[in-house]
């Protein structure tokens, strides 16, 4: 395989397949939600965090972008490139904070806080403002409240899953 520029690390066949299957899990878990009405949590972020941990920011943001594009178009939702940019940024932040590093509470909290405030609350509200001319300042507090509730839960799940023995076994299987 040719080596890739743009900083993409060279992948083995097994890495390509694993990232493909992660994309599949992103498509599935992105739609598997838990909770009621507005307090819904989808588990797609766990896959993105694991991809970031195992393959770094470039590959994780690439699969997050493709999963966002395909997931949106296939399900008939309105496609807007802004949300793809949000998916890329979220995955890049996970990759930057987790790739090749020890998963500590501090890392998880900082990464998730940046995503919750800048990506989920501010950027995503701004995309809605561009797309539908929704009033930014009227929607921002509603989305902020949701983030205040969901962010600690996401932090706990990421810390638990990324430090789990199962993921250690998967890492050992894939890279040693």
């Amino acid at each position, binding site marked *: 395989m040719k080596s890739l*520029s743009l900083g993409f690390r060279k992948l083995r066949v097994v890495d390509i397949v694993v990232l493909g299957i992660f994309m*599949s899990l992103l498509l599935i878990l992105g739609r598997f939600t*838990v909770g009621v009405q507005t307090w819904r949590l989808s588990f797609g972020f766990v896959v993105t965090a694991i991809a970031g941990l195992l393959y770094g920011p470039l590959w994780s943001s690439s699969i997050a972008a493709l999963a966002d594009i395909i997931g949106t178009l296939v399900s008939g939702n309105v496609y807007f490139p802004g949300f793809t940019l949000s998916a890329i940024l979220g995955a890049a932040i996970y990759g930057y904070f987790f790739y090749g590093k020890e998963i500590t509470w501090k890392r998880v909290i900082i990464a998730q806080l940046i995503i919750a405030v800048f990506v989920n609350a501010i950027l995503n509200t701004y995309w809605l403002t561009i797309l539908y001319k929704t009033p930014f300042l009227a929607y921002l507090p509603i989305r902020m409240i949701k983030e205040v509730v969901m962010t600690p839960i996401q932090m706990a799940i990421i810390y638990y899953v990324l430090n789990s023995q*199962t993921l250690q076994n998967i890492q050992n299987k894939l890279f040693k």
Partner: protein
Amino acid sequence: MSNFLFGRYLPGKSWVHQMSPQSKLMLSFYFVIVIFFANNVWTYASLSVLILIVVVMSGVSIGYFLKGIRPLIWLIIFTVLLQILFSSGGHVYWHFGPFSVSDTSLINGGYIFVRFLLIIMISTVLTLTTTPLAIADGVQTVLKPLKKVHFPVDTLALMLSIALRFVPTLMDEMETILNAQRSRGVDFGSGSLKHRIQAAVPLLVPLFTGAINHAENLSTAMEARGFTDSEHRSKYRVYRWQRKDTISWVAFLLVGVLVLFIRNN
């Protein structure tokens, strides 16, 4: 197979069905961009006529399009109401504290409503007339120019094919894990948010373990068959640009130019 893959696509032989996926994909993006330039009744009317023609030519019943609006109905109502109550200018019909309803706010509310409908309709046309695999193929074609800057388009296209192939398999496995947990008394549908999340997290571990096993098996099979790179793969179905695509593009471009001419500057 899962609803995710075939839930929204409706087989057919209409003009829109027969267009190439990359053309439909680009036309949808183009249409959404043109909507941003609409700012008066004539521009919105032109785009509405165009989308109605597309809906008719897709041969799909209008009921399917209305279904596409349902998930966004509260966002639409909330946004239109905010627009009506907080817009200023024009003749005021009603006023209370910071809220007011004027002829300008009603018109703006109407524009926002039409804007929502137009964006949802074009996305729905694409989804109802294009299979997920064709959409994936279209995305790959659209991304191809990025190869010039050494973006790994072919590798990502292979990942996408693998992803779509494994969606039904992994969905089935998730269903099996869910049922196994239910048979042990886990209730995913009731309780507090914390309780529901605590019940759902244990699903992730077996799902990931199973997914990695699939990945190992598939990569071994690929290597055993001599797979070395993703750049020279052949395709079972090849979607070619047709005369229908050219005609559709001409029509959309003409409406785009019309919108630029008749909009308020």
